[in-house]
């Protein structure tokens, strides 16, 4: 990983993309991301393939060499958005009711009967949250927290925050009410927030060692 990263830093995008080691690693990360968003192996494969082809065609014109991965990921996100918009993936949130009660309970458990924080759940200040962004272990925690969310909630959250869909478009596509959309996003954020706080931002002294 580290070696491939070094090479992408010094090569032109076209060279980097023709380097099998770089490409393999890039593809792996892209597939993982696409699979997460589309939840369909064949569609994820298509999105990644199309993104790599588009990148190869445009590589000569791309100048920010160090940001190769960021650039390719922005192409990939657009491909994923296209696929979701085309409705190739028939999304159904029919089972959303199953998630509702447990997620409601989780949020209710954070507050006392009068609607104020319980002592244990009151959010504490995160120290140096930006430092986490450069830490690989942090991203493993982030993924684990994301994984813990019920699938439907995670899907709405990712459409909103990773793919940048407007809430109104999400509601229309998934055939849910605006209010439901806001509730789902609230649950996702509250869930991720406490998970990150519990497992990273206050997980004890040894989090960076």
């Amino acid at each position, binding site marked *: 990983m580290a070696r491939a990263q070094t090479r992408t830093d010094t090569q032109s995008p076209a060279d980097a993309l023709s380097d099998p080691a770089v490409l393999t690693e890039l593809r792996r990360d892209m597939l993982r991301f696409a699979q997460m968003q589309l939840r369909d192996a064949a569609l994820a494969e298509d999105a990644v393939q199309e993104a790599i082809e588009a990148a190869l065609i445009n590589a000569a014109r791309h100048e920010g060499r160090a940001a190769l991965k960021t650039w*390719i990921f922005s192409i990939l996100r657009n491909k994923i958005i296209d696929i979701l918009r085309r409705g190739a993936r028939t999304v159904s949130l029919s089972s959303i009711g199953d998630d509702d009660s447990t997620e409601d309970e989780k949020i209710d458990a954070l507050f006392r009967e009068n609607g*104020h924080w319980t002592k244990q759940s009151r959010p504490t200040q*995160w120290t140096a949250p930006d430092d986490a*962004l450069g830490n690989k272990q942090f991203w493993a925690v982030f993924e684990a927290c994301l994984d813990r969310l019920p699938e439907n909630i995670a899907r709405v959250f990712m459409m909103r*925050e990773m793919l940048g869909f407007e809430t109104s478009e999400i509601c229309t596509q998934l055939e849910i009410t605006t209010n439901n*959309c806001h509730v789902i996003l609230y649950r996702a954020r509250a869930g991720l927030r406490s998970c*990150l706080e519990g497992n990273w931002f206050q997980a004890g002294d040894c989090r960076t060692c």
Partner: protein
Amino acid sequence: MLTCKEATRLSSEALDRELNLRERLSLRMHILMCTGCTNFEEQMRHLRKITRRYASGEASSGDDDRDHR
């Protein structure tokens, strides 16, 4: 006066739609007096930043790699 539960819900919704004046004022009032909700609101912004960074593909090639190679 908002409860913390209502205030957190508004902090989240503020990321998805423009709050009306009344909502904004009551949220501000609440946050002035509540450290828990102040932290929550701030963390909503961090969470958005974290998630966008993740989606930009930078997650698995963080500085950690560069530091240890």
